[in-house]
């Protein structure tokens, strides 16, 4: 288990959007902690509530459109109830963020360097020159070659990978405690993705921060996260240390995900897809939201919502099956899966 100080402590976070079609239950009762020095991975298919979780934490959801419950303590202060001014000071400085699209952070019409300098001076009273020196240092730290020259370029003069680096530089300028990265490598090719993941990991160590990494790619979280939360239909299905969640997965949804991904290093004769499709978040199935697609559903699954419980060692999940039943089922599934390997 990571043992750094707890920086983010989220408890009972729910986000609902009242719409003309009904209430969208985008995030439903999430609780998790993120510690300094760890990468906390949030993984789930599209529409599972990952980005809404992120936006809620950053106070970027419109309070009039979204109904938010729960608490999200950052170093003890609740991000969900603090005054907008205080939140604005924290956001961008103590909690920084990066996204899939670098243009969400970099304005295409201004030089990269000028934007970095402005970002520093928006939060700190420092002379331009000094801010520029610091910006160049950070550009160098994120691996931009010839940072002094590239400082004067416009974002479009950077390649895709370099723009991603520039955005990370922007996030690191003010020495944040937490970096939230929402699908930071989704638009990138695999070799550039490898560079960016390595960079995020390196800055996490060098700057001694916590990283919240949001992605739909199980391989990415398995590679870089120490703690993982698997989301489905706005809820946490399973959560815990990476070795536990991927090595001894407990939830049938996690099993399904793991079995439906083709690997580069293993050929199986048949993938085992999860039948059906994710539910509408307006009409979330009663009981366990995964039950209509779950091959192991039984009595209580469509009646009673399974409690999200710690099964030991910080490995938590929400499923009605008993620990014994799970062990047997997973062993059976694995055996079938390995037998399919050729």
């Amino acid at each position, binding site marked *: 288990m990571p043992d750094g100080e707890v920086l983010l402590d989220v408890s009972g976070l729910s986000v609902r959007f009242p719409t003309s079609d009904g209430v969208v239950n985008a995030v439903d009762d999430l609780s998790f902690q993120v510690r300094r020095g760890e*990468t906390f991975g949030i993984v789930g*298919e*599209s529409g599972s509530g990952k980005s809404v979780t992120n936006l809620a934490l950053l106070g970027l959801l419109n309070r009039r459109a979204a109904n938010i419950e729960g608490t999200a303590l950052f170093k003890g202060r609740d991000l969900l109830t603090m005054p907008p001014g205080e939140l604005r000071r924290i956001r961008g400085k103590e909690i920084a963020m990066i996204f899939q699209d670098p243009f969400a952070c970099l304005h295409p019409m201004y030089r990269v360097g000028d934007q970095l300098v402005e970002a520093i001076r928006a939060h700190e009273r420092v002379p331009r020159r000094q801010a520029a020196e610091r910006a160049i240092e950070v550009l160098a730290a994120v691996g931009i070659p010839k940072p002094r020259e590239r400082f004067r370029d416009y974002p479009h003069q950077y*390649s*895709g*990978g*370099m723009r991603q680096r520039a955005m990370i530089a922007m996030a690191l300028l003010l020495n944040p405690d937490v970096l939230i990265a929402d699908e930071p490598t989704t638009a990138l*090719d*695999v*070799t*550039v*993705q*490898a*560079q960016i*993941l*390595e960079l995020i*990991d390196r800055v996490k160590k060098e700057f001694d921060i916590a990283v919240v990494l949001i992605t*739909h*790619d*199980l*391989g*990415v979280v*398995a*590679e*870089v*996260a*120490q703690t993982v939360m698997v989301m489905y239909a706005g809820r946490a299905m399973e959560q815990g240390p*990476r*070795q536990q969640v*991927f090595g001894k997965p407990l939830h049938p949804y996690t099993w*399904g*995900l793991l*079995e*439906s*991904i*083709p*690997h*580069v*290093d*293993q*050929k*199986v004769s*048949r*993938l*085992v*897809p*999860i*039948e059906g*499709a*994710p539910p509408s978040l307006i009409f979330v199935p009663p009981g366990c939201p995964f039950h209509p697609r779950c091959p192991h559903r039984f009595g209580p699954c469509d009646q009673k919502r399974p409690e999200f419980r710690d099964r030991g060692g910080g490995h938590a999940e929400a499923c009605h099956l008993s620990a014994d039943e799970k062990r047997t089922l997973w062993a059976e599934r*694995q055996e079938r*899966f*390995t037998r399919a*390997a050729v």
Partner: protein
Amino acid sequence: MEPLVEVEGLTKRFPIHRGLLQRTVGHVHAVEDVTFSIRRGETLGLVGESGCGKSTTARLILKLLEATEGTIRFEGRDITRLSAREMRPLRRELQMVFQDPYSSLNPRQTVGQIVGTPFAIHGIEGSTRSKVQDLMERVGLNPEHYNRYPHEFSGGQRQRIGVARALALSPKLIVCDEPVSALDVSIQAQILNLLLSLQHDFALTYLFISHDLGVVRHVSDRIAVMYLGRIVEIGDAGDVYGVPKHPYTAALLSAVPTGEAGGEMKRERIILSGDVPSPVDPPPGCAFHPRCPKARLVTGSPDEVPENCRTEIPPLRNSGGRQQAACWYPLRPDDELQRVVSHEPRGS
């Protein structure tokens, strides 16, 4: 038996125009001197990073683009210079499934119309409706949804519509260009399984394009790896992935996150420096030489590569394994770079 498709020296350069007079000031070297064949009933996978020329290759083969150089043979017949009219009878043999199940389906047509269009165009006799409903059933759609519109379906179901449309006239070749890239993993596996079972039932031949190396591995019998418009390695899937000979293939495979690093990023991997160079002005010699880790191992210096890598284009040839690679210094079994990617099978 003769291959279904043979391409030789296939090249496509897109002119770049500038100024009022639209003078040609250069070319995008999208596809350069590509040679391969696709056997009947097999799946040839085409992998490579975005912009390496995969989609252009596909469009050339389907004759949606005119080749700059080279030849394309279908069932032994040279179709490179056939006119649109001459191509028409061949159209039903060559079909395509696109990446985006949202924009590749006409939103104002019902499923029945979309899947039935090929029957109408080719003047096929008989009840289109029952043929379309059979197809819908075969690809896992409810035939009663014949009159529904694309927006009433989920992404995965829309891709099934795209597959049914491609399947309509019993084609011989289906080119799948990133057919599952827009889908979530749980749905992706459903579509991949569908494509594989259709191939089995209808003896289809696939050219399967994806940037996802795992997906390509799963469906392909043989795999071609492209870099900057050229094929750098081609061979049986197990050989190319198991014992890659081209340093680029090795780098690509080692970049795929698999979780082996145990959350610590400790796994050995080949991190390529820099980005893919511009196809407008590709590097001379081997296009991969500016980023090639092997060329640097050969000289023993991070700043130097062997002379032939810089000046001569390496031909695609046998390189010590069963596959072919275009490299002057292909990886050897004892190569440090190959050790990084050679995989022990999982679960053992």
